[in-house]
């Protein structure tokens, strides 16, 4: 418990650094947003100045940063200038879409990568080992935006088994009552299986796209770590004692091989959440990656800052979760 608390405290400087860097970065973005949003030609110089004042751009940088920090402490992430909505609200609305997608992709990736890596490690140099290497190298070689388009072409245009690849739900279906914001979970809570199926079908292609890319690190780490474990002395002893193959592989070797695999899982998950900007673009997914993208294109600082902060926060939380998971699997790591 103490350890977790200490870990959380040690993340504070990093979080502060992230706040500072995002702040500076968004201030060097080109264009005066006040002029940009005063695109209305009837607006005069003094109206622009008033807008600048309202947005706080007339103050010095340290002052602006101070105001930003105070706002942050109140949970105020600012307001998007394009939509006029508070950024915090926008993030709460969009984050579940990204999380739902990433979690499904993550589950898919683990479901394929771990058996594949295990099989490869148990028969090094065999056909399955080479196949695993080929699949994972290929998976990480195809850009996600190409995989996504390819899947759309095959499953939507050619075979017609996938729904139109736009957004989270067919526009003719009604969204379930919002409880968690995760459409599949909300649909189940509402007992509406049709919506559940529709939402899941909508997620399948983008999630597969992301999963294919995440296969490589997970498969490789599983293989390497499992190979190491299988070669160790306690496995030789277990073998010599005549234990069954299943018990040796899963109870002894896999459990010991699990630590680096968990670490890789954590890294892969944070990476996936951050890198799904491209996948969200291809599938018109209304997640926070798309929000960050719009924000960059529209020179709208606040949502971009919010995105970076949320991502850094998730990154730190995932690292923490990884740590806790490792301690659970291997109590020796708690020291």
């Amino acid at each position, binding site marked *: 418990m103490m350890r977790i608390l200490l870990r959380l405290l040690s993340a504070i400087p*990093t979080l502060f650094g992230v706040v500072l860097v995002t702040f500076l*970065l968004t201030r060097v973005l080109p264009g005066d947003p006040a002029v940009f949003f005063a695109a209305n030609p009837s607006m005069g110089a003094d109206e622009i100045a008033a807008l600048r004042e309202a947005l706080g751009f007339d103050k010095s940088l340290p002052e602006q940063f101070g105001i930003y920090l105070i706002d942050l402490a109140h949970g105020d992430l600012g307001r998007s200038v394009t939509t006029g909505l508070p950024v915090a609200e926008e993030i709460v609305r969009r984050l579940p879409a990204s999380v739902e997608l990433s979690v499904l992709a993550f589950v898919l990736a683990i479901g394929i990568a771990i058996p594949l890596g295990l099989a490869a490690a148990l028969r090094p140099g065999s056909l399955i080992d080479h196949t695993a290497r080929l699949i994972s190298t290929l998976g990480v070689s*195809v850009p996600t935006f*190409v995989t996504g*388009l390819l899947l759309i072409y095959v499953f939507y245009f050619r075979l017609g088994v996938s729904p*139109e690849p736009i957004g989270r739900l067919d526009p003719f279906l009604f969204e379930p009552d919002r409880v968690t914001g995760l459409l599949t979970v909300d649909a189940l809570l509402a007992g509406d299986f049709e919506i559940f199926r529709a939402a899941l079908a909508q997620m399948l292609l983008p999630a597969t796209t992301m999963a294919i890319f995440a296969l490589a690190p997970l498969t490789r780490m599983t293989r390497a770590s499992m190979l190491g474990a299988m070669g160790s002395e306690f496995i030789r002893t277990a073998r010599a004692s005549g234990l069954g193959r299943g018990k040796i592989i899963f109870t002894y070797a896999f459990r010991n091989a699990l630590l680096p695999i968990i670490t890789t899982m954590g890294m892969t998950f944070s990476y996936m959440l951050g890198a799904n900007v491209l996948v969200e673009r291809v599938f018109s997914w209304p997640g926070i990656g798309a929000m960050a993208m719009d924000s*960059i294109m529209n020179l709208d600082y606040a949502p971009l800052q919010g995105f970076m902060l949320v991502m850094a926060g998730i990154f730190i939380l995932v690292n923490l979760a990884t740590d806790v998971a490792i301690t659970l699997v291997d109590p020796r790591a708690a020291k």
Partner: protein
Amino acid sequence: MTNPHKPGHLAQISQLILANPMNLIGLILFGFILMIAVLGSALAPYDPLTTDSAAILQSPSAAHWFGTDQLGRDILSRTLVAARLDLMIAISAVGLSSVVGSVIGAVIGFKGGFWDGFTSRIVDVLMAFPLFVLALAMVAALGNTVINVVYATAIINLPFYIRLARSEVMVRRNIGYVEAARVGGSGDARVLFRFLLPNIASPIVIQASVNLGWAVLNAAGLSFLGLGVRPPTPEWGIMVAEGARFIASGEWWVAAFPGFALMLTVFSFNMLGDSLRDMLDPRMRT
């Protein structure tokens, strides 16, 4: 002067290449892509920028092997010509970040103290960012040009090289040959650049070769989103983005061929990275 070790080295390397068919495939692919990057515009059957309103969105045929795009431009020619630009971006970005990153990492690992702590904290902060979005924002901030794509890609890769070089130098800081060099009268700078850096070269080279494919994906991703390279310049990411509009109506070839070129390039880089790891670092051989 001839190096007596050379023939043995070569024989060992060729043996390693032949031992795993994957290494050979990777090497051949890499050579093939490098050749296209060098000869690209000479091989292209058409001018990559010439539009032809009579031949819009034609499927692959004898005249246009890869078909034509929405402006009637020949996709084969555009794909071939684009190779050089895509490779140049990736290679310069990786070159830049590996050199700068390993020097920074080596210096702070060697010196320790305040700057080590300070730089390591900055690296932690950088790593906590969603790196692709950071690159996006940087290109938007610095200006929408190719050279800024190179800088942005280099910056988001820096932390990995800094960490690697730092830890490799820290391990070797007090090793025998360093002490010997000190006894021989070498100063800090000489120990660092003459003795330590060459010895950490192989992990850095491995990291760089693995990184290369990633840099290609990164740059193509940026231009797919409309940052960096601008149309009508032939570049794979832009070409896929243009083709994306026609995927749902069945004109697959506009996006597929540049996408395939990207895949092949990154694949060959990744294979090459694996082979290099096999050759340079026997400890990591599995």
